[in-house]
């Protein structure tokens, strides 16, 4: 099984007056795993259903390799898909569910049996194939759905929130398993999720969606280190980055009632300063009042007030933060992210 490149060109989708997706250009390399990440209603699932062929695009084109597919019926696209609800047919056994796409293609019965059991073994559900979906665990249902998608050896694998119905422990295990399987098979994969930990852990590259547009398309590390705008800055990372509105002058950032040093840039005027809670430290020159400290286990999340601004910082559990006490904050200039008045990254 060898993946194929997927290219979206000028893709948009309107539902009546509602614009679900506006002019999207994006390509997924052959064999790559890409995650579409964003809050609900951001256009990520719409895009996935466009790729699958369930929706017809309003404008734009979809290519699988050199083949233009946006006019094709889903059955002619050679994609495998796993749904949030798994969408297993309740009246069929797991075996029949997995065999379903092959039988539709009228493959010889011997081949069907061989492929189904091979795929089922690969996913560790070989022993429950004669049961119906309602008689197996959530994790097994999820594997069966994955097996059904993989058994026809698709060029493109589409995963729509495939893990969100699993409980936390099984989810971590399934995450690693899907990733390993996808690498071994080399199938081009698109994963839709609202869970950033899942996206960052599993995908080669992540497209962050908001309001029908891709905000940034980059590797997980790059998303974390160089968010392209305030939306990505605030959305990626947990706990989220502090983003403060203020004025940028030559080498300083001035907010309501306080200021700090930042790298020198040519940009001047209204803008935003972003700093991650884990980059804030005690021992600088910005005076802050502690509001509350929440224990997270190894660390604590401290909310402080600087001037009229609330900031969050991650600190070691050992550090004492008494409510209402005053601390000095260090905002390291080499760790801050600066954005212009429109929220775009500068520097």
């Amino acid at each position, binding site marked *: 099984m060898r993946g194929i490149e997927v290219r979206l060109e000028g893709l948009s989708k309107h539902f009546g007056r509602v614009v679900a997706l506006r002019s999207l250009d994006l390509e997924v390399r052959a064999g790559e795993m890409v995650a579409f990440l964003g809050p609900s209603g951001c256009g990520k699932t719409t895009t996935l259903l466009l790729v699958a*062929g369930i929706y017809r695009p309003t404008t734009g084109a979809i290519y699988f390799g050199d083949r233009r597919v946006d006019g094709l019926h*889903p*059955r002619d696209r050679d994609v495998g898909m796993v*749904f949030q609800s798994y*969408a297993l*047919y309740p009246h069929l056994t797991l075996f029949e569910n997995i065999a379903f796409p092959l039988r*539709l293609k009228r493959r010889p019965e011997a081949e069907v049996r061989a492929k189904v059991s091979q795929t089922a073994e690969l996913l560790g559900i070989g022993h429950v194939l004669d049961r119906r979906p309602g008689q197996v665990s959530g994790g097994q249902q999820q594997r069966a759905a994955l097996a*059904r998608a993989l058994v026809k050896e698709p060029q493109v694998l589409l995963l729509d929130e495939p893990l969100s119905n699993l409980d936390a422990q099984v989810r971590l295990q399934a995450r690693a398993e899907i990733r390993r399987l996808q690498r071994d098979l080399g199938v081009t994969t698109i994963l839709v999720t609202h869970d950033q930990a899942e996206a960052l852990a599993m995908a080669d590259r992540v497209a962050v969606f908001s309001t029908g547009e891709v905000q940034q398309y980059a590797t997980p590390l790059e998303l974390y280190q160089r968010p392209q705008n305030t939306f990505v800055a605030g959305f990626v990372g947990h706990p989220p980055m502090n983003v403060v509105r203020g004025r940028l002058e030559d080498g300083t950032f001035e907010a309501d009632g306080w200021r700090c040093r930042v790298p020198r840039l040519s940009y001047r005027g209204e803008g935003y300063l972003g700093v991650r809670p884990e980059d804030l430290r005690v021992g600088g020159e910005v005076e802050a009042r502690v509001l509350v400290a929440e224990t997270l286990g190894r660390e604590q999340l401290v909310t402080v007030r600087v001037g009229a601004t609330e900031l969050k910082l991650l600190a070691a559990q050992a550090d004492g933060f008494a409510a209402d006490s005053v601390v000095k904050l260090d905002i390291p200039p080499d760790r801050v992210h600066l954005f212009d008045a429109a929220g775009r990254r500068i520097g």
Partner: protein
Amino acid sequence: MPLLPVRWRWLVASGFLLCAPIVAGMAWLVLTALFDRVHGLVPAGPLAPENWAFVGSPSVGGRPPAVVALLNSVLFSFAVAAVAIVVASMAAYAISCLHFPGRSLYLAVVLVLHAFPAVSLLIAIFYILRVLGLFDTLVGVILVKTALELPLGIWLMKGFFDFLSWEMEMAALVDGMSRWGVFWKVALPMVRPGLLALGTFALLSAWGEFILPFTLIVSSRSWTLATYLQSFLTEAFTDFGMVAAVGLFYALPVLVLFGLGQRYLLNLYGGGVKG
């Protein structure tokens, strides 16, 4: 859960009173069919197997054999139920799950027809069947009865298709099916309760149907049990023993269904469906 502060014996008394006529009626039917003479609800004669002679008899008073009427009734009801199930499911699936212009208009028409009293069209239907050459044929009555069941059927099935999981359908499409295939292999198996409900409705309704065969069929060879039984009622001197036997014979499938599936029927008719 008692909702009201009412004394129990009042309840028991009024419940008994309200149900008494129905119980009495059923008892009368069974007793009269089995005994020679029944006074009120008290058998006044010996058991009378001769009441049931019509079953094997080739003809009672110039009527066709009861077996013919029975076969016609069976054919009529099952044909109506089968055609109604297929046709209504197809239309309901289209309204519920397919994109086409004029969808909401189509549903509006179905809804209006659902409330519309179809009996008032009987005169025109009589005329149309005459023109089509389907008057006095079982096929004609089957088509008419099926058509009259359709608004209810489409409405009922649409409710079931509306609750179908979209993801399931999407999965089937991605797996390589056409919408036609999805309908037969994925959608229909998943709305089995709906098919069963519609089937039960249509069977019961067609089995009891009287006005349509009475009006649209004249030849006695196409009589159903409804018209067969009715032909006894209009006689000057009714042999109630035999007629009750015919009636019990005719009502037996309904009574068996009632005995086995009271709860189911209650849910069915209680589901806000047409009565």
